[in-house]
């Protein structure tokens, strides 16, 4: 096996045993990027020089016996996380030349844990999209089939992990942007509870929904990264001062005697039969582990897309008001006065999907429409959360498909925004309720496309997700395949 194919825990064992070096791992990852990223296009920017210097320092630290949890491990960052001195574009022309003067908290924590940053990964512009096709820097391709999308918005991070162009990656999830691409690229992706991971330095999309989380090759790596990134941050007033458990301690506990809810609203007409079959097989594996799978109902599921596409754009139009060509980012040279400068800057700086969402949000919040749209959506949001509260009254976790279909073709949904929005149908309600969710690989379609199964738990119950998903991973015997690149 090449070093870039290994997991964090496998590499760490071999690093500490002195069998390999951080410099060797980093070189292997960059060689892999050189070989495949021309086709995949997972990265917007690479950080090779810094990474090589970091690798040398990591090797010295290991020699001194001073290894931290991620010392020498190459990690990729979604280009929505601010990196001091390294361009952070958010997939947008308007931030094409933005060089943050500070690090996001998640970047700081990973750095302190010894991680080596490889580069910034491609994403839908401002994380608005489900396919990584709206990036100003071009589309990312699915490593399992280069004619298909990798999912989105964290498509670059998911593709980079799937194609072994990094060992693990960081993404963000506002309506499924970690779990959906994880499912479509055949990797593990976790969206933590709202408030579990600091959003300081995460470029804001929808502030009541955004959350940062890991992409990994297996469950153990997911727990390792969660141990590093979770926790209270005094700089982020919605981060929650709740104790962070050792997530690795959940991995081997098993789920004998658990009640696993299977929401009937997630097995709808229109779901791909191969996806449904793979998830039904996963349910049988969970039953074999001593989980009692019971049908439950989340009756407001059918409204989640409508609620989300009011609330997320409403918050986005406010968050994106700051891009006005004054403080940072692109400015159009055409405007003769201030108002014209704002309009021309934003018209040229934002892509079509971002403009669409700013328009929906502005309309939904505008005088005369607020009650009909924003207030109504916020009320239905409360009912969606209530559905989950009731389900978790009797269930330890819930189990669903992550996506209704495998990866679709590039260009298939770009002309029809509503069809694109419906591809998030199984992931959105998690963000609306603020609960954690994880997508784990559960097999392949006949055409060789990955399928993901999603587990959901109550607020701050990431441990349960890891416990259940890890038990599943160990027993599902999903065939180990690598993308045909």
């Amino acid at each position, binding site marked *: 096996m090449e070093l870039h194919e290994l997991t964090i825990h496998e590499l760490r064992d071999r690093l500490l045993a002195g069998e390999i070096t951080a410099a060797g791992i980093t070189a292997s990852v960059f060689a892999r990027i050189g070989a495949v990223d021309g086709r995949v296009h997972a990265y917007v920017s690479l950080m090779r020089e810094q990474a090589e210097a970091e690798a040398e320092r990591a090797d010295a630290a290991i020699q001194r016996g001073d290894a931290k949890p991620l010392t020498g491990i190459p990690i990729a960052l979604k280009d929505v996380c601010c990196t001091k001195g390294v361009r952070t574009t958010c997939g947008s022309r308007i931030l094409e*030349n*933005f*060089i943050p*003067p*500070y690090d996001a908290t998640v970047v700081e924590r990973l750095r302190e844990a010894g991680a080596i940053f490889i580069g910034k990964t491609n994403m839908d512009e401002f994380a608005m999209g489900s396919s990584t096709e709206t990036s100003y820097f071009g589309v990312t391709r699915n490593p399992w089939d280069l004619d298909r999308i990798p999912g989105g918005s964290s498509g670059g991070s998911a593709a980079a992990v799937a194609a072994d162009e990094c060992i693990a990656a960081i993404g963000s999830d506002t309506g499924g942007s970690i779990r959906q691409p994880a499912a479509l690229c055949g990797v593990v992706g976790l969206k933590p509870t709202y*408030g579990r991971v600091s959003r300081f330095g995460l470029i804001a999309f929808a502030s*009541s*929904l955004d959350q940062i989380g890991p992409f990994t090759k297996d469950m153990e790596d997911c727990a390792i990264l969660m141990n590093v990134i979770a926790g209270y941050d*005094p700089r982020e*007033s*919605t981060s*929650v001062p709740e104790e962070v458990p050792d997530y690795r301690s959940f991995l081997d506990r098993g789920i004998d005697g658990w009640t696993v809810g299977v929401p009937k609203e997630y097995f709808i007409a229109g779901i791909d039969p191969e996806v449904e079959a793979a998830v039904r097989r996963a349910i049988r594996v969970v039953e074999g582990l001593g989980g009692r799978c019971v049908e439950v109902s989340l009756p*407001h599921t*059918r*409204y989640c897309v*409508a*609620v989300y*596409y*009011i609330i997320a754009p409403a918050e986005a*139009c406010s968050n994106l*008001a700051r891009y*006005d060509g*004054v*403080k*940072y*980012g692109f*400015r159009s040279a055409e405007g*003769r*006065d*201030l108002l*014209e*400068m*704002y*309009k*021309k800057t*934003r*018209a040229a700086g934002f892509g079509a999907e971002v*403009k*669409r969402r*700013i*328009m*929906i949000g*502005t*309309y939904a919040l*505008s005088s005369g429409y607020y009650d009909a749209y924003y*207030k*109504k959506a*916020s*009320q*239905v*949001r*409360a*009912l969606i*959360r209530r559905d989950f509260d009731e389900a978790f009254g009797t269930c330890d976790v819930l189990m669903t498909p992550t996506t209704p279909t495998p990866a679709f073709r590039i260009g298939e949904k770009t002309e029809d*925004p*509503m069809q694109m*929005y419906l591809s998030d149908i199984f992931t959105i309600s998690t*963000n*609306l309720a*603020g609960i954690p969710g994880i997508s784990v690989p559960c097999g392949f379609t006949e055409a060789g496309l990955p399928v993901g199964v999603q587990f959901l738990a109550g607020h701050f119950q990431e441990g349960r997700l890891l416990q259940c998903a890890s038990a599943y991973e160990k027993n599902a015997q999903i065939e180990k395949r690598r993308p045909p690149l």
Partner: protein
Amino acid sequence: MENIRISKDEVAHVAHLARLEFGETEMEKFTAQLNDILLYMDKLNEVDTSGVAPMTHAIAQKNAFREDAVDPSLPPEDALANAPAARGGCLQVPKVID
């Protein structure tokens, strides 16, 4: 006019509020797409929400207070380093007042 939720004039007004501008073809396309999206939102009217308090936060939290103490903040030259135009320690913009 059953299926019209937003007119081209309204789209132009909202674009002004959002500090955006569109060309003629873009405007036609946006009006049609926004209309489709708003039509989809109609399904929320099926839900009886009388007496339901709107949810604004995922996690119920009290106000997050901190001590009113001075911490180091961004030096002015760092804060201005990304500005499209700056002069004399200030951000520079097109003329606002005649």
